[in-house]
């Protein structure tokens, strides 16, 4: 009996030691992970609210506290183990197009259950610090507030007791606007091109006019020449013999590396393109209301990007010229309720004019009939207003001869280009077809152009203090 008792005591002690140490560590590891999950949940909650500023502005920030440009929300329970998250959102930066960027700071806290002791790896010496350096556990006091202050800026340091052992992890995210023209071509359904004598590359108009340098690494403009990316939200990607100096992404495609694609390839990149809706620019100017003969628009004031000179045209079958207001940068928005087509149809945009053309119908023009005299694509932007019937498709047909600089945002349109036009700008469409000698030169300056269509998380940093 005595021997049995002795053996039982020894076995029990072994089991106790093993389980105690393992339980302590597993609790701490679990809490450490739960804390980052809570922090990321807080970041996601804030990010969703930022996206609402575009998708549902009337309901954005409901339930949030506001102080100046900072929105905050705290004490949100996460999971079933007592996790908490809180976040603040600060509109901290405006890009060149006036689009806001948001700084999100999220904090996630998870309780640490079990015994109050440090990790199992207690072989502590000057070089091996075990778990303590990685997992900063607040057993009695919040170490972050004590050392760095509640905001981490060194202000307001104080000793704050915690109700129970906990781990808090902090994230800082930056939500950046997604503008329509982040790639040379963004096609929802299919991509076909470029032709054997064509290509897709890029340049930066802020550094000078376009010149082909994609095969010359010694040229200082080379760094801007390999951003002619193509993104297709389907598996339907067909590359002819023309090279693509940029990355290619598809959604379920089978694109493989080749000498004709200079960038990275990713066949698992779904994306969404919101329909194009007509903004509200208020009441249009009294005239003109049609372009059925050669017409010139000279606004009586310069306007702004947010409040341009607005014209409503019910027909567009002839030549239109848009002049600036004196020597000022002049902003013009035109809504064409039908097609932009006809043997005489053309658009001439003089330098200093920033024109946005919204069309409900189709476009059928020769490249030479799109005359953007500044040579900068952002100065002439076409927007195909999506039909209310999603099954209805628009068409944009560009025929030779000629070259032009412009952007197209027409998620409901089949974009078709043949012959030998050289297009400088960017295209967002439903399907893209570019054969023959058609080339597209993406302007990297377009990355901040256009009305944001969504937000993405552009930066992720964890505060390791």
């Amino acid at each position, binding site marked *: 009996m005595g021997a049995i008792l002795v053996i039982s005591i020894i076995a029990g002690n072994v089991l106790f030691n093993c389980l105690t140490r393992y339980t302590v560590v597993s609790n701490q590891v679990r809490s450490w992970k739960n804390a980052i999950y809570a922090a990321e949940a807080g970041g996601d909650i804030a990010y969703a609210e930022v996206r609402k500023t575009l998708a549902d502005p009337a309901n954005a920030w409901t339930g949030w506290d506001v102080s100046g440009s900072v929105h905050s929300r705290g004490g949100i329970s996460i999971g079933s183990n007592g996790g908490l998250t809180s976040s603040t959102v600060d509109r901290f930066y405006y890009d060149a197009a006036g689009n806001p960027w948001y700084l999100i700071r999220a904090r996630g806290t998870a309780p640490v259950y079990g015994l109050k002791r440090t990790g199992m790896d207690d072989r502590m010496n000057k070089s091996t610090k075990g778990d303590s350096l*990685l997992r900063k556990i607040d057993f009695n006091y919040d170490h972050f507030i004590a050392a760095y202050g509640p905001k981490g800026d060194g202000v307001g340091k104080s000793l704050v007791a915690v109700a129970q052992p906990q781990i808090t992890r902090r994230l800082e995210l930056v939500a950046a606007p997604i503008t329509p023209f982040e790639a040379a071509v963004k096609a929802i359904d299919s991509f076909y091109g470029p032709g054997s004598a064509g290509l897709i590359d890029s340049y930066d108009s802020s550094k000078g006019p376009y010149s082909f340098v994609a095969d010359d690494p010694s040229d200082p403009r080379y760094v801007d020449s390999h951003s002619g990316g193509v993104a297709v939200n389907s598996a339907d990607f067909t590359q002819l013999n023309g090279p693509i100096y940029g990355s290619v992404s598809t959604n379920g495609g089978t694109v493989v590396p080749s000498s004709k694609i200079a960038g990275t390839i990713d066949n698992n990149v779904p994306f969404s393109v919101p329909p194009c809706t007509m903004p509200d620019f208020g009441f249009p100017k009294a005239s003109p209301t049609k372009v059925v003969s050669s017409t010139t628009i000279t606004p009586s004031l310069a306007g702004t990007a947010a409040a341009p000179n607005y014209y409503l045209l019910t027909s567009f079958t002839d030549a239109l010229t848009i002049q600036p207001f004196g020597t000022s940068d002049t902003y013009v928005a035109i809504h064409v309720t039908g097609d932009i087509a006809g043997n005489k149809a053309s658009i001439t945009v003089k330098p200093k004019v920033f024109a946005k053309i919204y069309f409900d119908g189709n476009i059928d023009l020769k490249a030479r009939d799109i005359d953007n005299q500044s040579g900068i694509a952002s100065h002439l932007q076409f927007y195909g207003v999506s039909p209310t019937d999603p099954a209805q498709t628009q068409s944009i047909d560009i025929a030779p001869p000629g070259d032009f600089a412009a952007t197209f945002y027409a998620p409901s349109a089949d974009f078709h280009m043949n012959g030998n036009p050289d297009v400088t700008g960017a295209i967002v469409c439903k399907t893209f077809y570019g054969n023959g000698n058609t080339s597209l030169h993406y302007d990297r300056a377009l990355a901040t152009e256009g009305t944001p269509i969504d937000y993405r998380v552009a930066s992720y940093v964890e505060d390791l203090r």
Partner: protein
Amino acid sequence: MKLNRSRLQQAGGYTLTELLVSAGISCILLAAAVTASISLQKSFNAIDNFFSSEMQQIRLVDYMTRDVKRGFSVVTSTDLHTVTITVPKYIIEAGDAEAIANPALIGTPRAPSISRGINGMQVNYGTGTSTIAYSINGTTVARTQDGGVTNVSTSASQLLPTTTDVQLANTEFSKTVVTFLPTFSSSNAAVLRASTATHSTAYLRNKRRGG
């Protein structure tokens, strides 16, 4: 008189035979107890060592996952045992330009700035980045950040991490497998090592830059 003699006979001790038998039995029991104790102690050491190695394995994976998530790029050596991660310099440290200008800023976070890089608009924390390298040195796995070394694990059980990284259009992910060879092993070491594998996949949460 007869009654007194029988009482004396009943008050006697153990016989030699009984003593020898009981001693023998006691020895056997004691031997069993000692053997069991030794076995239990060995089991405890084995379990303790196994848990210790496993916790170091988990710690290594957690360290790497945390750094990969906040990284700009991940590069793995040819032998898959060295991983180099580039991360933003979020905190102002002694010796940084901001700290030299104002020492009170040491230990405080930098404000983000926006610029256009090769891959488009990007968020920057200061003008430089920090480099973190995980490497094996004997039985030690070290994490080196800008020259400062932290031994993440010093396992006598031959902790062995292997990492592969896959570049995608905008991001990158690294797959890490960490194994160890238990100290108490009796058969095929390769099988035992494989059975202790911990797998982890971590994606860069930042848009990949360069590399």
